[in-house]
């Protein structure tokens, strides 16, 4: 039997969805190996008793609360290492997201533990947990087994479903952490800054998404025209690469660090389909991809793939859809 420790990220008084997925997953798997699921939270006064207790609804029995800086990984490594030292958890589990990767990796170094990232499924076997992870561009799945006292599992974003079953209220345990000198040498100057216009892509039925293949910021006009032709509830989305390049607003970003969408139609223009993007849109009902590179990974998970020049195809497609709508 082994207990599972998860880290739960919060922002402005609410817990992160991927973290809640990790608690749900941790609680289900811990039960299979005769253990409990606990959570660590690190932050300020917004981590109220009530908020922490609410993790009980997702299956956590104990919540270890440490006062510390928010949004940074290394202080959480200190907190989790302390809790694991005192309680002997067998596994540490993280939902998808940037901090989970950083904390899990730091904890692996600190505790000489094995770590698997991008995990899409956790299973119990002979009283232990194993982690399944897609590799080589999702063409194969590898199974990780752990040696030693601690195994670290970092989920892929959206890999773990939130199961809000229990009425339970988690016990809140305050933990005093002596932060490592190097953990306090990074300080948050500004957190959660929104850049660019606010657009709503999560509610759209049809998304026309653009990537680097659009060539330049002005290339998004093609995507906007096409979305407009569809009319109604259609919007334009973007990949991280083009958002970071300043071609399109952050609020429209799909993928690992952006939003997750599942519209009726996802039309990807000039998007190669890297894993980090795929995880944000793969549950779309219909995926259409236009890309000039026939080897682009997106064709492996699109329902309709068009190999060709989007500059030629998109304007004509826009006109054809307008015509169809008009008829």
């Amino acid at each position: 039997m082994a207990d599972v420790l998860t880290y739960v990220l919060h922002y402005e008084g609410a817990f992160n969805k991927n973290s809640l997925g990790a608690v749900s997953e941790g609680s289900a798997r811990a039960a299979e190996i005769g253990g409990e699921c606990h959570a660590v939270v690190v932050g300020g006064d917004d981590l109220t008793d009530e908020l922490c207790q609410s993790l009980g609804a997702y299956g956590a029995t104990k919540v270890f609360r440490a006062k510390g800086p928010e949004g940074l990984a290394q202080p959480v490594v200190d907190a989790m290492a302390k809790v694991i030292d005192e309680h002997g958890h067998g596994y540490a589990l993280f939902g998808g997201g940037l901090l989970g990767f950083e904390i899990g990796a730091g904890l692996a170094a600190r505790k000489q533990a094995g770590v698997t990232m991008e995990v899409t499924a956790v299973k119990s076997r002979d009283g232990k947990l194993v982690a399944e992870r897609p590799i080589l561009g999702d063409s194969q799945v590898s199974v990780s087994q752990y040696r030693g006292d601690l195994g670290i599992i970092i989920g892929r974003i959206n890999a773990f479903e939130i199961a809000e079953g229990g009425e339970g209220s988690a016990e809140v345990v305050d933990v005093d952490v002596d932060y490592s000198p190097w953990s306090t040498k990074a300080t948050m100057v500004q957190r959660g800054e929104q850049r660019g216009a606010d657009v709503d892509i999560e509610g759209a039925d049809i998304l026309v998404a653009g990537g680097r293949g659009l060539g330049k910021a002005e290339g998004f006009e093609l995507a906007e025209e096409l979305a407009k032709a569809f009319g109604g509830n259609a919007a334009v989305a973007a990949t991280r690469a083009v958002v970071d390049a300043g071609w399109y607003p952050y609020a429209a970003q799909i993928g690992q660090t952006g939003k997750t969408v599942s519209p009726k139609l996802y039309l990807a223009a000039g998007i190669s389909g890297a894993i980090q993007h795929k995880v944000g849109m793969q549950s779309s009902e219909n995926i259409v991809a236009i890309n000039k590179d026939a080897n682009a990974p997106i064709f492996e998970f699109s329902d309709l793939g068009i190999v060709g020049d989007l500059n030629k195809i998109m304007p004509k497609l826009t006109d054809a859809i307008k015509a169809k709508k008009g008829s």
Partner: protein
Amino acid sequence: MKICVLVKEVPDAAVVKRINPSTGRMDRSGERNLNPYDTHAIEAAMQIREGGVAEVDEIVAVTMGPETAVRALHKAVSLGADRSIHLCDDALAGSDVAATGYALAKALENEHPDLVLLGQQSDDGECYTIGAVVADHLKMPSLTQVIKMDLDGAALRCERQAEYGYDTVQVELPAVISVGDAINEPRYPSLKAIMGAKKKQLDSVTTVDVGIDAALVGGDGSRVQCGEFHDPPAKAAGQIIEDEDTNDTVEKIVAWLDERKLI
């Protein structure tokens, strides 16, 4: 200041990647490229050198890998590194992320860098994690997925996308920073730099040279065992249209969308 850049040789994007069934490890025989993300790390180091805020005495490229990995170091030097270190030892083969990060940290320790830079991910496997492992061993602050970095005295002001938007984080040096590809546009090496790369100092070191505990590296020293490789649940292959006559292509797309009541 001294900057160390961690680099890695990865499979050429055109090479089909596969697991060697007899070893259960990735078949690395087709490897011959510097990880593209690492070229951004070298460029970031060069921009600090050229930025004039701090005097950069040295940029050192560091890699761990088999003998062929010197090619990644040559490329790194052609892009601006002054010299390079190759941690090469059969005892390291099969190291997992935690073991690899530990070994790299030991190699870096002797260099006393003020800043360690690396690419945030590699095409062939472990993403986002190695920097955090290295940092904990070196007892340095770290940040991954950085897309903007400005030197401000003895600290770096870094920006990145996190869960809730863009974060700006001040990191005191020495530090370990992994960068994303949006941070800069790497320059192309000059012919002269490519030709001269092989003449620059390259030190090959072993686990003993840098004080690595052999029990903590290699397949046996790793705490994760990967195996049971299998195919993911199959997804029905989609239809592919090669665009030859665009009018015809568009007609087909519209018909496809119409059939699914998407218009």
